[in-house]
C-alpha cells in the first residue's frame, strides 16, 4: 500500500467524505479480519451520520457491532480487544461523548504500552464526529481535540478532505498506537477525488494546500477548507497566502510550519477549538521557540473558538467560531497593519 503523500490524479472519481471513510473501512476489513467496527447505531442503522452505511450488510454483525449506550464500557472494550490481537475501530457518536470514555482512553489506552515497559500495544482507532454548525448546541458541537493532543501515548488526526479521510483512517488502522480521528460533521457531505485503491496519508505530516509569500495560514479540519477559500479571496487583494492543512495534531508537523514562517514572516493560526489553551497556543509557542522566530515580522495571530459554550441560535452559533470572513479580515490586518 503506498505510504507516501498521494495526490489524486486528475480525473479520479469523487466521493463524499463519509463515503470515503466507508470505503476505507470496507477495504481495511476486507484485507484484515482483525479489523472490526463498533459503536452506537453503526450497524443496522448505518451510523448516526450515515458513515457506516451498508457495511453491516456487507460484513455482518460480527464485524460491524451495535453496542449499548455505554461509552466508558465500549472504549475499554476497544482497549481489551486491541491488546489481545484485534484492531478495533470505535465510533463514538458525537465527539462530546468522549467525556464519558476519558478514563479508558487517557488512563488506559494511552499509557498501557509505556506502563508495561513496551510489552503490550494498543492498536485501536476511535472515530469522533465533532464540530459545530448543525444547531446541535452546547453538548453536541464541541471541538475537543486539543485535550487529547495533550496526552503522551495518543495520536490525534483531523482530515479535511475525502481523500485524507480515507488515507488517514487507513494509516490509523495500521498504526500500533491508539489514534483518535476527529471528523467534522459539516464535512461529511463534501466531495473530492478519492483514489480507488487503498493508500495511506502519513500521520504527522501537514499538507501545503496553497503556496504563498505574504503570510502563512495554518488550520485543520474545516478551518483548513475555510482558509483555502479565504486565500482565494485574499489573492484578489494582492495578499498571497500560504495555507497549511495540519492534518495531524499529535504528532504535529512543526518542520513544515516553521519552514513556511521563515519564508512568509507572518503566521495566522485558525482553529475551531476554544481559542485559549488550545492548539493555537501550542503552535505559537513552538514557533517562538524555533529558529523561525528570528524571521517573524509581526506578532503571531490566532483565530479560535469563542470563550462560550456553543449556542443554539444559528447566528450566535456562527459567530462563536471563525468563519471565512474572519480569516480574510485577520489576514488582511496581519499583513497590512502588522497586527494580530
Amino acid at each position: 500500500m503506498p505510504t507516501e503523500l498521494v495526490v489524486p490524479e486528475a480525473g479520479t472519481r469523487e466521493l463524499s467524505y463519509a463515503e470515503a471513510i466507508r470505503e476505507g473501512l470496507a477495504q481495511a476489513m476486507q484485507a484484515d479480519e482483525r479489523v472490526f467496527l463498533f459503536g452506537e447505531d453503526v450497524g443496522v442503522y448505518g451510523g448516526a451520520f450515515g458513515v457506516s452505511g451498508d457495511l453491516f450488510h456487507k460484513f455482518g454483525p460480527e464485524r460491524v457491532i451495535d453496542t449499548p449506550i455505554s461509552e466508558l464500557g465500549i472504549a475499554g472494550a476497544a482497549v481489551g480487544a486491541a491488546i489481545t490481537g484485534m484492531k478495533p475501530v470505535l465510533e463514538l457518536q458525537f465527539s462530546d461523548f468522549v467525556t464519558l470514555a476519558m478514563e479508558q482512553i487517557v488512563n488506559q489506552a494511552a499509557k498501557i504500552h509505556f506502563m508495561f515497559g513496551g510489552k503490550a500495544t494498543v492498536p485501536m482507532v476511535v472515530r469522533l464526529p465533532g464540530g459545530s454548525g448543525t444547531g446541535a448546541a452546547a453538548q453536541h458541537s464541541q471541538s475537543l481535540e486539543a485535550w487529547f493532543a495533550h496526552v503522551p501515548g495518543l495520536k490525534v488526526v483531523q482530515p479535511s478532505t475525502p481523500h485524507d479521510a480515507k488515507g488517514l483512517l487507513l494509516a490509523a488502522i495500521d498504526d500500533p498506537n491508539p489514534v483518535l480521528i476527529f471528523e467534522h460533521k459539516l464535512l461529511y457531505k463534501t466531495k473530492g477525488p478519492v483514489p480507488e485503491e487503498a493508500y495511506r496519508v502519513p500521520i504527522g505530516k501537514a499538507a501545503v494546500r496553497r503556496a504563498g509569500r505574504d503570510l502563512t495560514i495554518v488550520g485543520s479540519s474545516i478551518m483548513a477548507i475555510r482558509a483555502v477559500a479565504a486565500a482565494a479571496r485574499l489573492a484578489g487583494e494582492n495578499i498571497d497566502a500560504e495555507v497549511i492543512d495540519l492534518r495531524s495534531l499529535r504528532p504535529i508537523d512543526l518542520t513544515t510550519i516553521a519552514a513556511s514562517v521563515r519564508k512568509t514572516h507572518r503566521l495566522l493560526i485558525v482553529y475551531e477549538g476554544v481559542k485559549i489553551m488550545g492548539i493555537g497556543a501550542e503552535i505559537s509557542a513552538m514557533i517562538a521557540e524555533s529558529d523561525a522566530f528570528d524571521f517573524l515580522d509581526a506578532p503571531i495571530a490566532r483565530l479560535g473558538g469563542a470563550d462560550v459554550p456553543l449556542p443554539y441560535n444559528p447566528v450566535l452559533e456562527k459567530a462563536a467560531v471563525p468563519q471565512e470572513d474572519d480569516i480574510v479580515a485577520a489576514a488582511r490586518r496581519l499583513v497590512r497593519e502588522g497586527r494580530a
Partner: protein
Amino acid sequence: MPIEVILPKVDMDMDDGIITEWKVAPGDRVRQGQILFDIETNKSVMEVESPASGVIRDLAPITGEPVAVGTVVGWIDADAEAGASSAAAAERTRTTSPSAAKADIDHPTSSPEPAASVEAASVAPSDSIRATPLARRAARMLDVNLADVAGSGPAGRIVEKDVAAHAGPAPKSAVASADRLVPFNPVRRIVAQRLAESARSAPHFFVSAHIEMSGLQAALRHPGGQQSPDRARPSMTVALAYLASRVLALHPLLNASIEGEAVRLHPGVNIGVAIDDQGDLFVPVLRDASTHTLYDLAREFARLRAAVRARQIVPDDMRGGTFTISNLGMYGVDAFTAIINPPESAILAIGRTTDTPVGRDGRVVLRPMATFTLSSDHRIVDGVTAARFIADLREAIEHPEGLS
C-alpha cells in the same frame, strides 16, 4: 534601587573575561535583555544582556585586561521617574479597555486600536526600540542602527521593510559610490586577532605533496567494513580527517602545542575542520578522532555542521583542537598554504582533485591527484618530521585498507 551589572560566567572553566566593547554609554536608557557589552573568552566573543531596564551608569573602562567573573562592571538605576510614569500609563490604558479586549476574543475582526494609540502617545520617543525579530536580523546584516530607523508598524514598531528602506538601495551601478565601513562582527574579530598572532609568532614552513586520490574515492563509493547504520556516506573531508587522525597518532610533534620553551604533547587527536558559513569561519573539532570509526566521525561532523549553519554551535564544540584541516578543493583551488590555528603546531591545506598526468611504470597516465600542503611551526617541527608525516599521510590515503 540600583541593579548590578556583573561580568557573567558564560563558558565552562571560565574565571575571567575581557570586556571588548560597550554597546551603550553612561546615561543611556536600557531595556532588560538588550545587549550591553561584549566579553571575550578563550575561544569566542559573547554578548552580555542587561539584567534590568533603566538608566545605566558607571561603566567599567575597557583596558584589555581580564576581569574576574562576578565583578561589577556597571550599575542600572531601574526605571527613573519618567520611565515609571509612562509604564504605569501604558498599564492603565490596557486595563481600562476591557470591552476592547473582550471584543478581541469574541469578534476577531475588531482591533484593540484605542489602547495602542494611547500607549504610543504616553511613551517618550527615546524609549526602548520596538522591532520585529526579522527587522532586527535585517539590521544586523545590513549594519543598520535601529535607533535611526522610523517604524511603520503598530506603536511605532520597526518592521523589516523599514530597515531595508533605511539601508537604501544596494549599490548596483558600475560607478562605485562612497566606501562602506563594515565593523568586524564578533567572529571576524576573533579570527583576525588569532591568526595575526599566529602569523607573527610561529615561523611557518611548508611541505607539499601531490597525492593520488583514486583509492580513497573508490573506498568511499563502496564502503567495505561495517555499514553505517544511518546510511550517511562520509564526505571526502571527513575521510581525510579520519585518515589524518590515525597518521597523527604516529607523529606526536604535529599533534602538539608550544608552551613557552616546551612542547605540550596531547594524548588525543582532536581534529578541527574549517567550515565557512555565510562568510564566517568556524573550526568545529572532532574530538578523539583517532579512536572513532569513520561513520562515527561522519555523524559527528554532520551534527557540527548543522549546528554551525543554525548558528547554534557552542564554544565547547570548538575548543581543544590539536590539528586542523582546511579543504578548499570544492572552490576550485589547486593548492594553498594555510596559517596555523594557534596553539596548534600544524595545519593541513587540501586542494582540489583533478585528473593530472603522472608517470606510472614508465608511461604517462591520467590519475585523480590532489595537492596537500602542510604548514608547520618550525619552533617544534623540523623539515624531516613534516616530511615523514606527509609521507605516511600519502600512504594512508593512497592505500586506505578496510576503511571502517
